[in-house]
């Protein structure tokens, strides 16, 4: 790791410099919500934010993307070779990418994910936690890898960590913007991180996987009765990996595209097979499956999004509390 310092009045110049490494995606505010979008001008970017509604996942794994073109039974791949810079990603969302890596890069590799992630420069950013965050419990409060550069907000400067050769190239490209760190900067960095740590509620998830399995239907019903099966909780989750695949024909009825699109285990069709048999027919079964995937298999980074964006206030931590009661 290389440690540097970037004064806040230099951040705009830094932002301008990173465009030479690829198309820049950054947190942008619109309608009061933060989302990761293409950002040309620094004035569009909001670096001080708590959580984006949709995680930055979609930059690497679009909500919907063509994966193949076909003409009759000849198939051709469609691969995105755009170089990207993903700026302003919080610890939890970086750790979520590491979880997605485990899925998509495990053999056989998913080349769509792989091509994008390897062409994307990731610049992390320290976050501003709120009461919905529980990243300490999921061990995703702080990350030491999964990024090229990381910016820690320390008041009037960013404490910068450079983790990869690619990250080093970026900082060397605008050498004049960065300064060496001294003892004092290090102290301020530690202080800032400690303050951030204090803001996240402590939670304990031991036994959770077993409790999810041990609780019966009646337990899950307490929560599932309120569920609208809308799928918001999975849509906003940075670690959700499920996708659906479907074809669309062009007007000639011979050629077309094969697409994939995010799917949700909270939707009824997720477990449906022939003869109308459904492996997760009831909402309580689907809710339990989601909790099993997230907390039973520890594929949750404690970002709190599923709770914040559930229209009926189904709170993942409330389920945790109830599981342990």
């Amino acid at each position: 790791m290389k440690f540097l310092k970037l004064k806040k009045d230099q951040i705009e110049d830094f932002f301008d410099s990173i465009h030479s490494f690829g198309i820049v995606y950054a947190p942008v505010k619109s309608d009061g919500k933060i989302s990761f979008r293409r950002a040309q001008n620094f004035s569009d970017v909001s670096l001080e934010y708590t959580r984006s509604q949709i995680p930055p996942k979609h930059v690497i794994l679009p909500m919907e993307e063509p994966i193949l073109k076909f003409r009759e039974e000849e198939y051709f791949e469609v691969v995105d070779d755009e170089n990207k810079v993903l700026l302003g990603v919080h610890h939890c969302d970086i750790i979520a990418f590491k979880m997605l890596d485990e899925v998509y890069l495990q053999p056989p590799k998913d080349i769509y994910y792989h091509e994008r992630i390897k062409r994307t420069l990731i610049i992390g950013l320290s976050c501003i936690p709120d009461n919905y965050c529980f990243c300490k419990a999921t061990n995703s409060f702080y990350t030491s890898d999964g990024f090229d550069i990381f910016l820690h907000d320390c008041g009037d400067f960013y404490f910068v960590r450079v983790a990869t050769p690619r990250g080093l190239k970026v900082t060397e490209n605008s050498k004049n913007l960065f300064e060496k760190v001294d003892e004092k900067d290090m102290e301020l960095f530690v202080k800032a991180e400690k303050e951030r740590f204090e803001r996240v509620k402590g939670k304990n998830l031991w036994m959770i996987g077993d409790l999810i399995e041990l609780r019966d239907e009646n337990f899950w019903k307490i929560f599932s009765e309120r569920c609208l099966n809308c799928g918001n909780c999975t849509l906003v989750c940075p670690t959700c990996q499920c996708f659906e695949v479907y074809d669309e024909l062009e007007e000639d009825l011979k050629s077309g595209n094969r697409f994939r699109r995010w799917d949700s285990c909270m939707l009824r069709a997720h477990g449906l097979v022939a003869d109308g048999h459904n492996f997760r027919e009831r909402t309580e079964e689907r809710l339990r499956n989601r909790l099993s995937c997230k907390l039973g298999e520890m594929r949750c980074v404690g970002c709190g999004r599923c709770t914040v964006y559930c229209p009926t206030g189904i709170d993942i931590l409330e389920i945790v509390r109830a599981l342990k009661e």
Partner: protein
Amino acid sequence: MENEFLPRRVRIEETKMMTSLEKWFKLDAQLDFKPGQFLEISVAGAGEAPISICSWNGVEICVRKVGRVSSALHQREKGDFIGIRGPYGNGFPMKEIEGEKLILVAGGLGMAPLRSVLQYVLKNRKKYGEVTFFYGIKCLEMMLFRDELLKLMEEENVNLHIAYEIEDEEIRNLKKRFPERFHKGMVTTLFEKVKVNTESFVVVCGPPIMYKFVLKKMEELGFYKERIYMTLERRMKCGTGKCRHCVVGIGSSSKLICRDGPVFSAIDAELIRELV
């Protein structure tokens, strides 16, 4: 780089309607596979579906018309092209079973993957002990690979028994031709009618509901759990462990059927919740 989602184009060499719902296809493809593995079959414009390889000599599939892909597939004929990916999945442990007695239990379309096992065993007949095949069908009209199976009944290689639900004139004639081979009832009733060795290995495939009954029966009779293998179905979209549609179980014991299966043992069924 190798793109796992890119189907290979293959030509259909031959087709045949097996029943009013199921169509058989012989594909012009060279594949290294194991009995119990499956392919992702692609029909451009309709999509993809997981389909078991139902043969050992060459690559054949038997497809029931139930939805988008299977209906589009049913319109394809000899000389047409389709796409394939795979083979995927673990397949049956044919090596482990060598030297042992084997019982195959198929219900309905479950015949498809078990025919691959059957052909494999017939090809390597000397490596296996006594082979029994139990096949449950609704009626004769729904019987897959009928000519082949009736021919097998005339031979000594395999001890084949059929359970049927609806009796008709034809079944009555077959009963005369092959005494003691056709029995009325579910596939599990064959375990009562036919003497079997409970030390045999058992491979099972059928509709989701069938497994519970078969496992219960085997437990009653005292079969070894670690010798019972089943191939399971889920809604699969990728076949490669990415799309998570085929997840089963809770927490750290959960599995992806496409990657960790589709063949599981009765021991797995004890440890993985709602596997069957």
